[in-house]
């Protein structure tokens, strides 16, 4: 019976692992971790040294190696689940080592698997946290074996192994190991020895990171005690679940003590409490216990996962991901799924609208609540916007600013493939082939980008090939040479347009900037140039702005044709004005009616959303 249950449990372990793989690949999608964190493993001895000189560095190095494969969704998911399964199996091994025929195996397996997987619901989660814990657990197993084989030398092994954990996996992992080994010790030694060992062990575990801080590692004290390292771009904020994850092993060991004590008392309890026979009957029925655990595990797994999995956050990352990969329709698709306004999404939505040639037409389909900051991030220096700023200037063809922000980003993420690619491309545009080659060589140390490097190295070997690359040709023609650029975004756009009047993005952004800053005079100054770009028809938001200009100025400048605005738009504006007039020009009272019909118009933006007019 027990053997059959074991086989069933094994099947369920495999089933759970497969479900975890499916969930990870389908819902969590590790490629988003890869993209958001810009994970990069560099095949370089210096890269290894940079990890080997601090507590926890080796685990971090292993973590970067593994997590680079998150770039491949299914393989990355497989790796995540494999590591989680290893942790679960270690937990099971420890349980089975101390408790014969334990009935809680399935719960233990599920707990560790679940904890390890749900951590990945947070896309800022640094994977080294998992690897650090894994190393701590592996060394705990070593301690169990050594402690069992050489009981008299337990204390010596404890001291040596905790130091090893500290170096390999950092202070928090050492504390987990310290607590675990104390419990393991108590399970295998007499109470007198445990009482003697406990205070010493607790004290040593607690002060070991401090000793390391004072005499060995040049790290901050915080970094030596915390589970995470305090390093820019400071993306991850530890959650309470993280502490649960790290305490799972000590908790399991405490539970083992409890089981062992209960097992010891089991007979006497049974003798005394005859009245509870029927309940004990169920409890002692392995199938019943197994099924109950199965139900509880599935319920908890579902509850915890749904509590931690946040599709809204995922959509934001998908917007970033698709923007990086120039999949503009997908950018918009995900942007519209996001319920709460986000200025970064707004920024990418505007870029996407430009690239699908709908910026003028659909500018106000996305709520432009940040005004011009939704175009340029001008008032923001948040770490996660730095590379998108570089992207925007790349799109616009202003290489100096794209380079400036790419270098700022590279300061924080020195090996990021996205940043290195950008810098290499900028130098190709600028005909600085020597520097382009340098950055390509650096990128080539990342094995996932060897093909990309090979494709671009051909531009170095034969520089004339750059003259047949459409993107490089376009950027070269847009990039103003030896022209001092004003710091204001509008001035930059004007300069770009003066340098190359065919720079459509500079033109559309310039008009959009005028609209979003509620500067209709500026808008009207540049609108005549729209004919240069051969639009099929005047884009909607520009028509609406022109209508408003006519309404407020009673006429158009002489160089503008009166048929600039279609009769339909004029009629819509009349209706818009009528609603306000019907509400005695009470804008608050008019808002609900206007919102239902005009929310995606420039007029509604101007009256209700513009940060400038609605402060």
């Amino acid at each position: 019976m027990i053997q059959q249950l074991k086989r069933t449990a094994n099947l369920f372990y495999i089933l759970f692992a497969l479900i975890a793989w499916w969930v990870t690949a389908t819902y969590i999608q590790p490629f988003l971790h890869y993209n958001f964190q810009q994970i990069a493993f560099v095949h370089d001895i210096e890269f290894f040294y940079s990890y080997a000189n601090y507590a926890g560095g080796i685990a971090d190095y292993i973590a970067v190696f593994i997590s680079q494969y998150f770039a491949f969704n299914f393989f990355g998911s497989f790796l995540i689940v494999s590591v989680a399964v290893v942790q679960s199996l270690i937990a099971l091994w420890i349980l089975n080592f101390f408790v014969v025929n334990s009935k809680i195996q399935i719960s233990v397996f599920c707990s560790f698997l679940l904890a390890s997987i749900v951590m990945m619901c947070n896309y800022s989660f640094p994977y080294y946290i998992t690897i650090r814990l894994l190393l701590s657990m592996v060394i705990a197993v070593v301690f169990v074996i050594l402690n069992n084989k050489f009981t008299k030398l337990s204390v010596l092994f404890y001291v040596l192994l905790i130091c090893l954990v500290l170096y390999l996996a950092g202070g928090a992992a050492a504390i987990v190991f310290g607590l675990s080994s104390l419990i393991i010790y108590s399970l295998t030694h007499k109470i007198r020895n445990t009482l003697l060992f406990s205070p010493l062990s607790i004290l040593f575990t607690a002060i070991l990171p401090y000793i390391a801080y004072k005499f060995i590692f040049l790290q901050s004290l915080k970094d030596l005690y915390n589970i995470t390292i305090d390093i820019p771009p400071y993306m991850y904020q530890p959650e309470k679940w993280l502490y649960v994850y790290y305490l799972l092993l000590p908790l399991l060991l405490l539970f083992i003590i409890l089981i062992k004590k209960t097992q010891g008392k089991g007979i006497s309890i049974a003798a005394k409490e005859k009245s509870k026979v029927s309940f004990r009957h169920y409890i002692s029925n392995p199938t019943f216990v197994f099924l109950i655990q199965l139900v509880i595990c599935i319920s908890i797994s579902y509850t915890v996962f749904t509590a931690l999995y946040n599709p809204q956050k995922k959509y934001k990352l998908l917007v970033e991901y698709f923007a990086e990969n120039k999949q503009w329709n997908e950018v918009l698709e995900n942007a519209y799924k996001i319920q709460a306004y986000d200025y970064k999404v707004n920024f990418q939505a505007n870029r996407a609208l430009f690239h699908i040639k709908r910026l003028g037409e659909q500018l106000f389909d996305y709520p432009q609540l940040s005004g011009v900051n939704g175009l340029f991030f001008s008032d923001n220096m948040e770490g996660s916007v730095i590379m998108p700023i570089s992207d925007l200037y790349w799109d616009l063809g202003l290489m100096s600013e794209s380079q400036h922000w790419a270098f700022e980003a590279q300061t924080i993420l020195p090996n990021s493939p996205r940043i290195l690619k950008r810098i290499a491309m900028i130098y190709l545009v600028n005909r600085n082939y020597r520097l382009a080659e340098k950055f390509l060589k650096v990128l080539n140390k990342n094995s996932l980008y060897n093909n990309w490097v090979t494709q671009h190295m051909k531009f170095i070997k034969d520089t004339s090939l750059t003259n047949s690359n459409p993107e490089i040709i376009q950027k070269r023609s847009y990039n103003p040479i030896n022209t001092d650029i004003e710091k204001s975004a509008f001035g930059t756009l004007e300069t770009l347009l003066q340098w190359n009047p065919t720079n459509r993005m500079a033109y559309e952004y310039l008009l959009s900037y005028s609209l979003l800053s509620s500067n209709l005079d500026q808008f009207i100054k540049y609108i005549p140039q729209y004919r240069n770009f051969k639009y099929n028809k005047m884009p909607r938001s520009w028509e609406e702005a022109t209508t408003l200009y006519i309404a407020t100025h009673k006429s158009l400048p002489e160089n503008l044709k009166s048929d600039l605005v279609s009769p339909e738009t004029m009629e819509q504006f009349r209706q818009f004005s009528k609603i306000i007039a019907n509400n005695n020009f009470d804008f608050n009272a008019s808002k609900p009616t206007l919102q239902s019909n005009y929310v995606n118009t420039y007029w509604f933006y101007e009256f209700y959303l513009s940060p400038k007019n609605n402060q």
Partner: protein
Amino acid sequence: MKIKSKKYVLLLIAIALYACHSKVENPEMVNRQPQIYPDYTGLVIPPNIAPLNFKISEPGSEFEVRISTINSEPIIIHSNDSNIKIDIKQWHKLLANGKGRDLKTDVFVRKSDGKWIGFKTIVNYISQDSIDSHLAYRLINTGYVIWSKMGIYQRNIENFDQKTILENSSFDHGSCLNCHSFSNNNPNSMMLHVRAKNGGTIINSNGKLIKIDTKTNSTISAGVYPCWHPNGKHIAFSVNTINQHFLNGAVRIEVSDEFSDIVIYDIEKNEITTTPELTTKNRENLPVWSPDGKYLYLISAPKTTNLQDRIYAKYDLLRISYDVNTKKWGTLDTVLSSAKTGLSISFPKISPDGKFIMFCMSPNGYFTIHHPATDLYLLNLSTGIYKKMDINSPQTDSYHCFSSTGRWVVFSSKRMDGLFTRPFFCHFDTNGNTSKPFVLPQKDPEFYDTFLKNYNIPELITGEVNISSAKLRDKVLEKAIPAKLDTTIEYMYSKTD
């Protein structure tokens, strides 16, 4: 029996490997020197410099290099790799025996047809003058606004060992480290600034470590650009309000001051003093002491009225006498004006014998590292004649430092790629003549190809900084002691004047 047979196998493998190396016999001689990287040809080198490892940039399948001096056993390196790494012990032995003689390097390359070719001998000269054993520098990324991990390091230039003096990761990534400075190339008299989080100035004065807040209510800012008095007890600081401006021309960024003055900090008294002559509406900056400690040299630009003036102003070179014991100031003299040179003067440094001032000149401003047109100049203090130095390149050649003997100079140059700053060395004789500069040697000759950090403020020091990084870190985490303002100061120009 088994062990014996294993030995034979190993011996056979060794013989086979040796046999694979063909001997250089009757090479066809080419009438030019080989292309090598970095350029270590035609140099004067210190007798205690680390091996000048290099890459042979000539196509070939095998390479042989013979390095020799007269009366010494040559170093012979035979390799399938074009990266030539010289044995450090043999190298130092060769240099020690070859002081004052030529160091000859013969390069042979085996071409694809199996024939060897030889090149004209590369001749470098081994100077009698040793160079200070260590170089201190900051390693920073190319970002201008944001910083992350950064540190100040020391490299033993007799070998390839680099050690950390202090890294911000040891206390807080939000802190910025800068402006490390030494008194007379002495590693035991060092200071550095910590900015932003844990801000303050750390001073190690011969083992006494302090953390000072040099900002007073009457000064524009905390101390910025420092220079130690030769007595090791005073530090002259500029106090500045600095900003950055981004451009799209050959100069991508301009750094300029709205205000700047100069103050003197007395380490023993923890006191800041100055004179009205150095706290005017003009922008006094970058103080540097004469080797006898009697004069303070500085640069100065007119006061700024708008952004254009501020960025494109030119700095003059001035000096003022000062007695640190009596606190007596002299009057300000112009040493060299920008009106005369047509360029802006920056980073004056006086040779230890007091004969020369080496300085940078660029079209405008003082923050020369971002100006490709920046070059190094030399002013003979006895004749007043200045000249552009031979060591310049088409790219930025900027921040420089004399060795303790004055016979060597290290300076920052972007000549290798126009972007990254690397330390270059050259010999400097008693008449101010210099030799061809060479880049700091690295174990891997291709190191600079993929190294994406800048060497910032290279400072030669006579030995290793003996204070531990942990002690420095602990000091950084302490609260800074506020410096006192000299009560005898009668007037100080302030921003509100």
